[in-house]
């Protein structure tokens, strides 16, 4: 235990393993070290529990990985904090679907992408393709205007997001073949159907 502590700081205590490892390992070591040494982490993330974490989360101004000086953003610092705290699934779901704080939704989505299995990620995050709220996304020295649905798409389809390597996902079609997942019902489909039924009734 003591040698483990010497090599890996900031391990989560009293939590169950995710993807077979201590949850904080879902953020690669180099990022983790940078977060643990950052001023925001030391000052604002110390001693938080799931309730007080929200104080910081609602104050978020943007998402993203690092700024131009390689300092981690508050967004990923809070991401690591959540991995340490491992809030109950119903809390995560609630945070994802509350409509008052959009960056809190992003944080919950990021956490879900890191922690759930592939089918679970598709099932929970795909409904957010219909969330068009604007968000600021810090990419290096620039701030990019983005939307929650774009961020969700990045989480579901690319290997990296917020300068982090995301856990590998099984392809959607494979999960459908295995009957672990229903085929996705796109928002556009339902729009088209309602259009058709309206035109049919005319």
């Amino acid at each position, binding site marked *: 235990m003591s040698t483990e502590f010497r090599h890996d700081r900031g391990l989560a205590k009293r939590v169950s393993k995710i993807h077979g490892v201590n949850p904080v390992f879902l953020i690669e070591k180099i990022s983790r070290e940078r977060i643990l040494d950052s001023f925001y982490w030391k000052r604002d993330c110390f001693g938080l529990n799931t309730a007080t974490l929200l*104080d910081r989360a609602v104050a978020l101004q943007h998402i993203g990985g690092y700024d131009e000086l390689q300092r981690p953003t508050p967004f990923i610092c809070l991401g690591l904090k959540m991995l340490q705290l491992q809030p109950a699934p119903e809390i995560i779901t609630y945070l994802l679907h509350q409509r008052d704080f959009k960056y809190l939704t992003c944080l919950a989505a990021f956490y879900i992408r890191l922690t759930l299995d592939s089918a679970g990620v598709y099932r929970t995050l795909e409904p957010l393709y219909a969330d068009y709220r604007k968000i600021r996304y810090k990419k290096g020295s620039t701030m990019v205007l983005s939307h929650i649905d774009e961020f969700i798409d990045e989480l579901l389809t690319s290997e990296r997001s917020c300068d982090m390597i995301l856990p590998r996902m099984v392809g959607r079609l494979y999960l459908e073949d295995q009957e672990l997942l229903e085929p996705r019902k796109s928002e556009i489909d339902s729009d088209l159907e309602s259009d058709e039924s309206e035109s049919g009734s005319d």
Partner: protein
Amino acid sequence: MEPNPDQKVTVNSYGRTSWNKEAYAQEALSRRKPAIEADSEAKAEVNAGTVTSHQLMQLREQVLEQVNLINTTTIISNQIAASNSKRGKGVGFYCDVCDLTFKDDYQFITHLNHPAHLKNVGFDEDVESQKEVSLQEVKDRLAMLKRNLALKREADGKEFDLSDRIKKRREFDLKEEEKRRVRRRAVKLRKRAETASADSDIAQMMGFGGFLSTKT
């Protein structure tokens, strides 16, 4: 000659010195005892008032006020400024629980998170982090934060207003333009003055400065 149990140092008939080790050990133990007892008493005192996480965070906020004062100036006595060690009150960030001073905010905050400091405060991280937060608590917290935000917006006087922002921006631009104009004019004037003086310097060098005759 048998060693005398009361004597610590004995010299035998050949003049060889021997030391009574038990007597020395006894003496050393009796000297150390009060110190050990005092130490354990102090520890008991600290652990008696174990603080909760909430109390700790409040304390922390108070202490962090120091960090918020960055870029302000405080006048201090010469004597304090001369001291160079971490121990005691000095220039920088001072932790009154541990009686230590730190040179920068990063070191200071690292200290505030350090197990040694937490122990001095009487905070046990392991006990505190075992508390579970329920969904209801999360909901209440968010509702509270939402209320606070609404109150703050009200206190600020208005909701976000685009036309107002545009007006302010225009005023700002005008002011900037005016500043730039002033600066440009100043530069131009200076340049003109410089070229004029340079002209007269050259003229003087060539020996035909001004209209006054140089002949005497």
